[in-house]
């Protein structure tokens, strides 16, 4: 960033912590960006002349006489169509060897959409994955995270979903991505010939953690440009939001804030909501859909990060390894898309809600049977059939490597019902059974 003539340079730091430093300065705006010893920093507290800055690059090696230059501006991103196809770091600087992007400067982390200017989401996003399309249908303008343990292939699934969803732009916000995962995304998008509709903002594990705090706002500012100015359907991928929240707690701890649950800041809910609520459907056709990843530790969803996330997002997708079939599935019990009722049976075939619910109920019967078995009780003949059904259901519909259209998913559902159960056991409305129950030859 160039230094302007009137800019004053301060060189007296009064306090330095791992993530912040304090300088005596005047005429500073709240949330203004400053450069501390060449590193980007943002004003997080002003008390008289004492200005506390959060240093995104970390404060390692910063001396008490470091040069501090205030830019007079909040953090910004230059937006234009030239963003497409490009890879940036957390500060919006190219990391793909290409030139800087020219365009209109927009504040990141800007204001929210007036709720009365939103439209109710109603457009289905097809992914081919039945664990999603059949049981947890996604809709444009929705915000939903994958809840997964760190060893699950969530980034792979997310890349697959992104490529199959028919969006105009895909914006990747990578926080604490390993270099391997970053390159994976790059390759997959490249191989799919989709690079020109991708914009990436990435902070890898090699970068300082506090940097991650900029990523979601950068990604969403780009998303708003395409969705509002260009009326495009934008899909934003945020991975891994747990690492984002960790960065929040680093900064708040350094600022001596009283932590609430799990040493997270008391404002965690609002902080996360500000990001996720950027998901929106506009009446003009533009939309922002957010698919995020929240990694869990040991599947614990009561931890403050997944817990607050669950209270904000419109459902969650749980990935789990099904040991029966040796594949990763979208867990039908714990996953939920809250917006699915806006489209299922309306944008999809009429039998969708019933087939979905019935299959999950029968799968639950199988889970009960398995518990019985584990407790050493005998299985009834019905239990045996339920178990067989569950296995095939898992293999042919829940596994994440399934790629079929919704109609086919529904047909497979009926086929499995007929193979293992009687219409009475299935208990679907008579009209639908008459219409869709497979006829014997």
């Amino acid at each position, binding site marked *: 960033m160039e230094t302007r003539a009137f800019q004053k340079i301060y060189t007296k730091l009064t306090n330095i912590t791992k993530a912040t430093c304090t300088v005596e300065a005047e005429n500073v705006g709240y949330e203004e960006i400053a450069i501390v010893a060449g590193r980007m920093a943002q004003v997080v507290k002003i008390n008289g002349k004492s200005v506390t800055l959060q240093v995104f690059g970390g404060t390692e090696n910063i001396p008490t006489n470091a040069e501090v230059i205030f830019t007079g501006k909040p953090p910004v991103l230059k937006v234009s169509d030239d963003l497409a196809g490009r890879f940036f770091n957390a500060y919006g600087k190219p990391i793909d060897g290409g030139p800087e992007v020219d365009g209109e400067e927009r504040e990141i982390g800007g*204001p929210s959409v007036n709720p009365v200017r939103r439209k109710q989401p109603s457009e289905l996003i097809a992914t081919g994955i039945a664990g999603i399309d059949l049981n947890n249908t996604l809709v444009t303008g929705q915000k939903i995270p994958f809840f997964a343990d760190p060893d699950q292939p969530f980034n792979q699934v997310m890349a697959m979903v992104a490529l199959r969803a028919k969006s105009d732009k895909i914006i990747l916000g990578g926080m604490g991505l390993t270099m391997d995962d970053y390159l994976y995304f790059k390759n997959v998008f490249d191989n799919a010939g989709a690079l020109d509709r991708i914009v990436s903002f990435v902070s890898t594990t090699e970068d300082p953690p506090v940097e991650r705090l900029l990523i979601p706002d950068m990604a969403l500012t780009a998303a708003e440009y395409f969705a*509002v100015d260009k009326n495009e359907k934008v899909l934003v991928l945020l991975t891994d939001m747990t690492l984002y929240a960790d960065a929040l707690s680093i900064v708040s701890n350094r600022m001596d804030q009283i932590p609430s649950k799990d040493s997270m800041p008391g404002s965690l809910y609002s902080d996360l909501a500000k990001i996720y609520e950027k998901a929106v459907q506009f009446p003009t056709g533009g939309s922002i859909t957010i698919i995020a990843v929240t990694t869990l530790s040991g599947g614990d969803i009561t931890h403050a990060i997944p817990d607050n996330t669950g*209270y904000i997002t419109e459902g969650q997708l749980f990935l789990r390894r099904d040991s029966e079939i040796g594949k990763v599935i979208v867990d039908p019990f714990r996953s939920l898309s809250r917006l699915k009722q806006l489209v299922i049976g309306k944008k999809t075939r009429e039998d969708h809600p019933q087939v979905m619910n019935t299959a999950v109920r029968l799968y639950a019967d199988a889970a009960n049977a398995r518990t019985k078995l584990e407790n050493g009780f005998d299985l009834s003949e019905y239990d045996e059939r339920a178990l067989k059904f569950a296995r095939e259901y898992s293999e042919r519909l829940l596994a994440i490597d399934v790629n079929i259209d919704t109609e086919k998913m529904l047909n497979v559902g009926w086929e499995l019902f007929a193979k293992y159960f009687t219409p009475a056991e299935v208990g679907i409305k008579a009209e639908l059974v008459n219409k869709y129950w497979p006829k014997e030859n």
Partner: protein
Amino acid sequence: MKDDRTLTRGKVTGIVSNLVMVEVDGPVAQNEICYIQLGGTQLMSEVIKYANGKAYIQVFESTRGLKVGAEVIFTQAMLEVTLGPGILSKNYDGLQHDLDKMEGVFLKRGDYTEPLDENKLWEFIPLAKDGDIVEAGSWLGQVDENGQPHKIMVPFKFTGQYRVKTVVPQGNYKIIDPIAILINNAGEEIPVSMVQKWPVKVPIKTYREKPRPFKLLETGVRTIDTLNPIVEGGTGFIPGPFGSGKTVLQHAISKQAEADIVVVAACGERANEVVEIFTEFPELEDPRTGRKLMERTTIIANTSNMPVAAREASVYTAMTIAEYYRNMGLRVLLLADSTSRWAQALREMSNRMEELPGPDAFPMDLPAIIAGFYARAGFVYLKNGSTGSITFIGTVSPAGGNLKEPVTESTKKVGRCFYALSQQRADSKRYPAIDPIDSYSKYLEYPELQEYIVTRTDEHWIAKVSELKNILLRGKEAYEQMNILGDDGVPLDYHIRYWKSEIVDFVILQQDAFDKIDASTPIVRQKELVDKVLDICRSEFSFESFEEVNPYFKRLINAFKQMNYSEFHSEKYKKYESEISAIVAERKVANGN
């Protein structure tokens, strides 16, 4: 704003997020509203603390770009709402700015729009006459607001008695037009218009008395009305982990409940959920009046991405609007989703002020704040003898779904109906996921309610309700035994007992909020259903082995569910009714009553 010269002014000296420290040159009051001058925009703020010559103010906006030295002007007024005809079917933000009047797609700081429409004409019908003695809250006249008799009252801020000098004749007036002239004790003439202001944090108490509430408030939700009813002027709360159905349940209540006015405070939750109301309510009909639901509804939207301080204000704004309509002799239903977000807003501010924290870092006085708020609901006799009510139902979002946390515990002390949503029920899609055993309605113990409810149901109703609860409890016990000892390790009777409780669960408790017919069950229909279900639960059935029990009751449940999906007393309904009788007859022991 009063005369500018007499107002206290100040300069910003410190900023931490939306907490701003201000050095002032004159007196300031706790909860006084002030405006920070930032370039051409004014940022509305509220004084929340004063110490060492500095006012600590919470800003209802983002403070981005704010600098030390910025000027602050204090208004000598607390946060107030504007009360008058035209509130219904409006969409407000937490500070009562009309969202529809704001320009642009994004909310702009300092874009403070008028809550009411100054140019709209209302047909005023006088109710008071010259010479009448009136006081704050007395009805001077009325206008028709979406079919509701909207009373024009003596402003609540007026103290003492007044004599009506004149009231304008019937005709069309704007809200700011004077509609009456009152004379106070000193003989001064005071003009009154159709609009007045009131500070949101102060309860409106212009009623004669607030007795214990006793009238059933029908919600159409069976597990509430039948098992744990709420009353007109009652309070209730719905705690539950995320995704357990709090919002769906509240929306159902807001659509179906027997109320004249519904005020919905969307407090720190999802914008899409508010959009759902905007989209659906103008289309849906209130079955009691035939008018659109939106016509009786006001929405206060402070969604989670809107400024946090305004979140706290939003619930008070909603409550004050509710109190205004209650004083017109109307039945108001007030819903807040979620009161935990309001408590969290308090926590964020208290943390920033570095106050000594209470449990889970919430402010120490949280229980008192919650109690004070719930106390504003209630059933009242107005001074003219009419009745009005505010029924309040709030949701609570406990961290980690664990009910042992400060917001749930504080609310439990004041909310009389407890509708605990259970994760387990939600996971198994047993909606609404209200746990029938943990939940309660204290009103059920009120003799006043017991006396009233039989007039809407039948004389044995209270006994029937406890019988249902007993069946559920015994069913649960039987189920636990079956899990320990195995299906064939328990007597056959355990299976039957368990499945009888499943009938109560599937047929009465579970209800499909997305089905046109099943979503709402009027109390007469609930009564008929309870009788049918109890009839079965009281009967004896004969089975050869436990394996026959499950399929038999499943068939029965299925027939009942189909009946629940059918129009009351329609052909289809009757068909399933006889199907049920036929299934019962298959196994019922002849004289087993």
